[in-house]
């Protein structure tokens, strides 16, 4: 589904001493099927933006279009519930939302609310638990007996079981160990391609943004600071420094190599081993 923000502003607690402007005149367009990373400092409006994507918040001014749904300050959006079925949100620390007696029931909770048939729920639960790489035996256990990492995966499976078309991820790897982080992100990336999802990833990690996203939006104080494809955005050092962000390490390394040694290697998602091979080949080949 295409997502369009038209001049969206959002103000918390308007007309009180606590009034706070979280988004100001934000406009952008997300093509259906793209993987977008939203980056910004704490308090830059990332979480507020995210809550507009399934109608949890209504813009104070402007309009948000998601597929055929229109959300604006005035007027009720019809079928906000069906929008929530199509746009699944994985919140920060999603394991805090677990509550059922068994993992199976918790994963099936979303689909049940959207009146999916029992048979179908069973099928989706199976599929979701496989997708997050957990053994099926866990289905009958209580979610509160699991480890933190497993709980995270169960919570994610609960969102996947809704079979959304838009997947919104709010720092889904925060607090996991490096290996778990990699696994979860790779899983989202695979799902994105396989199910042709539109994915919006809110993150602090420039490395993740570079590796997985095909479009990047950087926010500063509720305004759009930069936007574009990763390799165009993530190389602009001065502009990134204005929002206390760094150029990703790989890019820093590659531009260092080009500057000092004169070899120019393009970035195409290669890992360290591949990169080393390419470099060796270049040095041996004498450019």
């Amino acid at each position, binding site marked *: 589904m295409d997502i369009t923000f038209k001049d969206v502003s959002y103000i918390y607690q308007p007309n009180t001493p606590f009034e706070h402007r979280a988004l100001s005149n934000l406009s952008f367009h997300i093509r259906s099927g793209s993987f977008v990373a939203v980056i910004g400092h704490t308090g830059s409006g990332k979480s507020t933006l995210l809550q507009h994507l399934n109608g949890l918040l209504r813009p104070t001014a402007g309009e948000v279009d998601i597929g055929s749904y229109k959300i604006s300050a005035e007027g009720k959006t019809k079928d906000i519930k069906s929008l929530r079925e199509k746009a699944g949100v994985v*919140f920060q620390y999603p394991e805090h939302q677990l509550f059922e007696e068994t993992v199976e029931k918790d994963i099936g909770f979303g689909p049940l609310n959207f009146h999916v048939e029992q048979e179908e729920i069973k099928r989706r639960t199976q599929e979701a638990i496989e997708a997050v790489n957990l053994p099926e035996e866990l289905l009958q256990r209580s979610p509160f007996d699991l480890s933190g990492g497993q709980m995270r995966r169960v919570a994610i499976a609960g969102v996947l079981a809704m079979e959304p078309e838009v997947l919104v991820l709010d720092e889904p790897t925060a607090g996991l160990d490096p290996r778990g982080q990699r696994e979860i992100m790779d899983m989202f990336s695979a799902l994105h391609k396989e199910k042709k999802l539109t994915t919006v990833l809110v993150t602090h990690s420039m490395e993740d943004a570079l590796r997985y996203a095909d479009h990047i939006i950087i926010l500063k104080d509720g305004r759009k600071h930069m936007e574009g494809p990763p390799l165009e955005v993530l190389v602009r050092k001065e502009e990134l420094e204005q929002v206390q962000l760094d150029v990703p390490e790989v890019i820093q390394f590659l531009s260092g190599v080009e500057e000092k040694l004169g070899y120019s290697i393009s970035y195409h998602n290669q890992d360290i081993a591949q990169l080393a091979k390419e470099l060796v080949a270049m040095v041996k080949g004498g450019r």
Partner: protein
Amino acid sequence: MSSSMIIGQYVPGNSVIHRLDPRTKIAIIFFFVLIVFFANSVMSYGLLTLFAAGSAISTKIPANYLIKGLLPVWFLIVFTFLLHLFVTKEGEVFFSFLSFEFYTGGLIQGLAISLRFFLLILVTSLLTLTTTPIEITDAIESMLGPLKKIRFPVHELALMMSISLRFIPTLMQETEKISKAQASRGVDFRTGPVKERIKAVVPLLVPLFVSAFKRAEELAMAMEARGYQGGEGRTKLRELHTGRLDIYAYFLFVLVIIGLFITRS
């Protein structure tokens, strides 16, 4: 919800009222609540209103914010007024409409009682608007100090109060977070039959309790790790002290009390 209710919400500031010792504020408000019931003439009510309005203005909190924040209470005030107007049958009939007859006694009593009500609420909400919860607890601990002699656990009580006050906003945030997460999974808290809506509370309460217990355990552990072992011999980070400002405030208030007893009839 949180945007319209201001009772109990602290508004940061540096006005005279903000800087008063919290004990002074509590003491003055306590006696104000008592003397409001002694007022019985136009002059005495005027004096009290002047005192309350003066205090409210000197907090420098925007007036429209105050008035809007008290909105939920306005209903109660208006209701009290109407009740007295309809029920009291004293004095002369000053107005009759269809079969209803309104008496001057009812009008006067209605006005007096609702003004009393308004003053009480305004003054007490000024306390929480200008004093942080932690200052209030400190003040209560200090004012209950004498009870230690009869082995009343004053410090523990104050600690319990400040911990629970401290965690109200945290739990509210947590509630909001979880309810948003569950709403995203299709829970409908607002519409639908009552039975369904009661059932919708379960996915909210269970995670809330789980995290509250976890938090309590972590807090206890952190306090022990930092050597907490009760109130015995513990020094204070924030010393309360009664300064010149407080003496002026008491003096002004005593004048108001004297004025009240002169003007009442």
